[in-house]
């Protein structure tokens, strides 16, 4: 049997699906349409709600392969890998895409080894090569300094992970229909060598820069930790959150959850303000999909000015306080 069809891997949280499950459909739909093949979403979990499954169809899935059981409530790589490998061997998809989350980044390599598939991590772009119909996978490499395009000429499936929030969820279409294929769990696939013991919420700072509409990020140009105050003020007046470049996190000026970029988080806000950030490719990889990018930097040659929609060349210590002042006036009006 020929390998055919595009799969995306949904992620569950209890009976719900994580948003990334719908983002992956955006990626998958484009590839499936180019190839003229069905798009399927794989759901492994326990008691996933009917509404969630329906939403996968409304947002682009033609088929859902659903494997549910009490033992699958929590992600355990051994069992999930046995199941996904079995599904791949049975239904032979040509492409499998998952999120570059702690789950996807654990499960995908585990499975790719078993089925001898090519896997490319953290792709920023996925496309189909004309003529050959091979998946072209683009990812930043060497610390984000270059973009490498990778393909898997012979082995199938072609597997890839993409960053959460690097695309928007696929649009909801009330009229879409699809099919749910329920697959009963073959209990020999359950691996009992690992037990899920529990979960505790992190005492990490409550900052979710990925969910914010506005992100104001500071870079090396701030010169010292205390000056992040300026960024915080600006973020507050714009109802946004504080982001940061890798340099500032490495220097200990701000904590890691704020880091935007290849080695931090990918954000797609409506407004991204980069202050004192030169715009290394490693940073751009994390924010280039923002709707509007604003740059403030003293160096007119800074890379960030090439990617911004609006840039101010000048001293951020003069410019940001003035913006804050003016925003306060706007607020009071």
């Amino acid at each position, binding site marked *: 049997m020929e390998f055919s069809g595009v799969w995306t891997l949904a992620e569950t949280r209890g009976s719900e699906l994580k948003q990334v499950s719908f983002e992956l459909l955006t990626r998958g739909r484009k590839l499936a349409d180019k190839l003229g093949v069905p798009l399927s979403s794989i759901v492994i979990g326990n008691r996933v709600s009917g509404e969630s499954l329906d939403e996968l169809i409304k947002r682009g899935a033609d088929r859902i392969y659903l494997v549910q059981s009490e033992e699958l409530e929590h992600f355990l790589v051994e069992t999930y890998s046995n199941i996904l490998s079995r599904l791949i061997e049975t239904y032979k998809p040509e492409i499998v895409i998952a999120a570059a989350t702690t789950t996807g980044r654990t499960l995908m390599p585990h499975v790719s*080894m078993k089925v001898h598939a090519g896997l490319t991590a953290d792709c920023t772009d996925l496309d189909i090569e004309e003529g050959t119909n091979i998946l072209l996978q683009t990812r930043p490499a060497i610390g984000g300094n270059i973009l490498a395009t990778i393909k898997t000429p012979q082995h199938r499936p072609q597997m890839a992970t993409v960053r959460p929030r690097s695309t928007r969820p696929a649009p909801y279409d009330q009229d879409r229909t699809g099919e749910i294929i329920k697959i009963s769990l073959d209990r020999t696939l359950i691996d009992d060598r*690992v037990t899920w013991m529990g979960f505790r919420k992190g005492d990490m700072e409550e900052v979710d820069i990925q969910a914010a509409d506005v992100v104001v990020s500071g870079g090396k140009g701030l010169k010292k930790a205390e000056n992040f105050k300026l960024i915080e003020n600006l973020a507050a007046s714009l109802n946004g959150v504080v982001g940061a470049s890798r340099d500032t996190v490495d220097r200990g000026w701000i904590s890691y959850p704020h880091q935007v970029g290849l080695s931090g988080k990918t954000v797609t806000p409506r407004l991204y303000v980069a202050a004192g950030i030169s715009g290394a490719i490693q940073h751009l990889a994390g924010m280039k999909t923002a709707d*509007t990018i604003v740059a403030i930097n003293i160096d*007119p040659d800074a890379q960030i000015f090439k990617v911004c929609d609006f840039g101010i*060349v000048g001293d951020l210590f003069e410019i940001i306080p003035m913006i804050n002042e003016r925003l306060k006036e706007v607020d009071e009006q």
Partner: protein
Amino acid sequence: MNIVIPIKQVPETSNVKMDEKTGTMIREGVESIVNPLDLYSIEIGIQLKERLGGKITVISMGPPSAEKALKEALSMGCDHGVLITGREFAGSDTWSTSYALAEAIRRIGNYHLVICGERATDGDTGQVGPGIASFLDIPLATYVSGITGVSSDHLEVERLVEGGYEQLRLQLPAMVTVVKEISYPRLPTLRGKQKARITEIQNLSSGDLNLDPSRTGLEGSPTRVVNIEVPTVVRNGTIRFAKDEESTARAVDEFLAMLKSKELI
């Protein structure tokens, strides 16, 4: 507890310079170092050895010069070094790298725990740790931030996931990949360096490991890099210069007007 720690030698990439014309890294003057994230797996391995006894074997795949990375791990407190090396490994992607490392670990044998860093700073995939566990068919916990319990046949860990920490209990032998939070790497000691100097690194070829040529090196690698480019993302936005108070005020006005027009304020 006998521990195996796979490590990688990587170019010091925090300050990479690129050749804009060819899109390749300028390697001249770039130092080779132990993958910084592997220092955490080495450290936690040594801590476990100090508590529980046993031996640590560090293993790497790479050119003969990767011996230096293994020696550094020995100088921190590891006991044995194994280097998988040979031309036949050139062009290995994460699949055939995981395969070769797994076969070598099988050969070393008598291990209870394999510890990997989260990922290497050059390839940045984080795939080889899970890959080795898959080939060895041993339990796996990734992104481990703490080891909360050890017995003769089990390991309890916390792993850092989105929004918090997950607690897992794994039957040994097992593989964990660790994040920075787990430890603070020690520096090599003078005595450690002396010991490392006289400790011989064991070299293994694909022949020594009886590897299947169709699973080794470029031949065994499903993926191919087909294009490399220095990315250009250009939006051609509006640029304003804020040289003095007046031009700054003008730029800020325009900025606020733009925000307003896009309904951002």
